């Protein structure tokens, strides 16, 4: 059923340049005795939506955490555009255009929705400590510019202006997920990692979120890499699908190719879940 929400009328020019390609090459990840990822290689093409799917425990979130820089791979590399970012510290990856949402929502409860989203803009704020303390003209202007940008580009875009001053813990689950997405968008991302963006949502919420993700990819030109269990949504919006099982890539290709792949069907223990 088509969603009743249409893209926002104010098509503001995207501030971020078109998305970068992201590739994972031969990544090997171990936790003590557990071999979480074995020689995982795949790439997400610039400006397109790539999905990573697989049964629970296949290593999808581990891949994301490796790309984010939280896990250091024992072997292999992560490439953002031309740059090898495997050794780049976590907090420096934001500046290179890597943004992400989390499987279990990671909003900051001590901050309002607006403040959470503004935090996405943290890494491109330049004002020093002393000017911030005095709220000098430069600090003030920078803060206001951030507010304008966040309001026009993100809050209007995702239609959450009515809750901007709410504290995040009173929001329903679906809205919290949307705020997470908003925060990631405020980072001016070139690559957007979405970890189970529609987990726990009903059909309507899923369609809304799918619509937003498509809008982001079309209007902002961002590369989207998403992990998801909802096969319908994945097959609908992605142009490229990678399948993981037991820490290894078992298939990669267009949704149609992956859907018919015998190993993929086997991994999911049943043709039904894949051919929907």
């Amino acid at each position, binding site marked *: 059923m088509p969603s009743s929400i249409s893209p926002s009328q104010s098509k503001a020019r995207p501030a971020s340049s078109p998305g970068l390609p992201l590739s994972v090459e031969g990544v090997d990840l171990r936790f003590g005795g557990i071999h979480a990822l074995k020689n995982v290689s795949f790439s997400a093409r610039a400006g397109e939506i790539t999905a990573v799917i697989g049964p629970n425990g296949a290593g999808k979130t581990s891949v994301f955490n490796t790309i*984010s*820089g*939280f896990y250091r791979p024992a072997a292999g590399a992560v490439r953002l555009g031309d740059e090898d970012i495997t050794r780049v510290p*976590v*907090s*420096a*990856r*934001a*500046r290179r255009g890597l943004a*992400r949402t*989390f499987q279990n929502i*990671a909003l*900051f*409860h*001590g*901050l309002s929705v607006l*403040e959470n989203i*503004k*935090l*996405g*803009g*943290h*890494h491109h*704020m330049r*004002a020093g*400590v002393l000017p*911030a*303390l*005095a*709220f000098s003209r430069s*600090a003030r202007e920078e*803060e*206001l510019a*951030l*507010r*304008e940008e966040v*309001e026009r580009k993100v809050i209007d875009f995702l239609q959450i202006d009515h809750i901007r001053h709410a504290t995040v813990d009173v929001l329903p689950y679906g809205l919290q997920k949307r705020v997470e997405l908003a*925060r990631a968008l405020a*980072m001016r991302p070139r690559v957007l990692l979405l970890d189970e963006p529609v987990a726990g949502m009903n059909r309507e919420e899923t369609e809304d979120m799918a619509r937003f993700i498509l809008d982001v990819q079309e209007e902002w030109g961002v590369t989207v890499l998403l992990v998801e269990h909802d096969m319908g949504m994945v097959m609908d919006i992605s142009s490229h699908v990678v399948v993981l099982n037991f820490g290894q890539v078992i298939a990669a290709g267009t949704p149609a190719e992956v859907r018919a792949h015998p190993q993929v069907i086997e991994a999911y223990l049943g043709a039904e879940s894949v051919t929907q």
Partner: protein
Amino acid sequence: MRTGVFYETFRTEERLWNSPASKWWMLAFTVLLFTLPLWGSKYLLAMACIIGIHVIATLGLNLTTGNAGLISLSHGAFLGVGCYTVAYFGKMGVPFYLTLPIAGCIAALLGVIVGLPSLRVKGIYLAIATLAAHFILGFVFREWTSVTGGVQGASIPRAQLFGYVLRGDRDNFYLIFALVVILGIAARNLGRSYIGRALVAVRDRDISAEILGVNLLRTKLLAFALGAFYAGVAGGVLGYFYGAITPDYFALTLSIFYLAAVIVGGLGSVLGSIFGAIFMTFVPEALRLVANTSAQWLPNVAGLVLPMGQVVFGLLIITFLVFEPHGLTAIWRRIRRVFHLWPFKT
């Protein structure tokens, strides 16, 4: 949501006092305080000075513990550092508008030295490191006699402004008042800047904050150093106010006192620091009152004031943590909501 207040630009919404009512209240309050020496009793004036000192120190600890969630048990010791620094430079004739910033900076530097190793790991280690720092600094206060005067303590010459000596409670009051205003506004500004947001993010979920681009170590160090800076300045002003100090003033109890002030007032807000400081200043006073009145039946009561103080501080911390974790600020905000929405009920 206030009735009758509408914003037309983001700029006006982001202002510190962003409604006509709050502007008038702020003005009235400022005038009231400014003229305090004229209408207040001597006791009230002295109390106001002490409250002011406590407010500055609590503002600092609130930045470290309230906003960033880092427990510091060395806050009292940092006050001592500020006090002895002011004593040292004051004796050399350095004016107060230099000694106070220097005191703050030296305290902040020590904060960085303590924080650098311990902030690389979990916040618990910082708490223990600050405990260690407290005792090491206490040792220094007692033993480095050439600078600190050892166990006998040190005297602090009065602050001077271009030859005019600040003597007496009234002069000190204006100095303290000015500092509270400056440092309070600075803290408020920090709270609504991107740095302030980063502090809270680091407290709530530091891993996620890191992935958003927040440099954890630098942010935590900043929170800790800023808190220490405020403590140093507070300690310096304390020196000017009292004129003489001994090392046992800066005991662990002082750090716990300020911790209680932060929790009672409300973690993370400037208003909380003010409430907490005021409340905590009157706790020892109340205890002393109780001791004096009951001295008739219990002759040994005088010796009980200090330990009973410790018991009360601990009880306050636990009671507020369990029942009202957001402190007096939450109670105040509830009351204010009634007035904001008036004449509507909800």
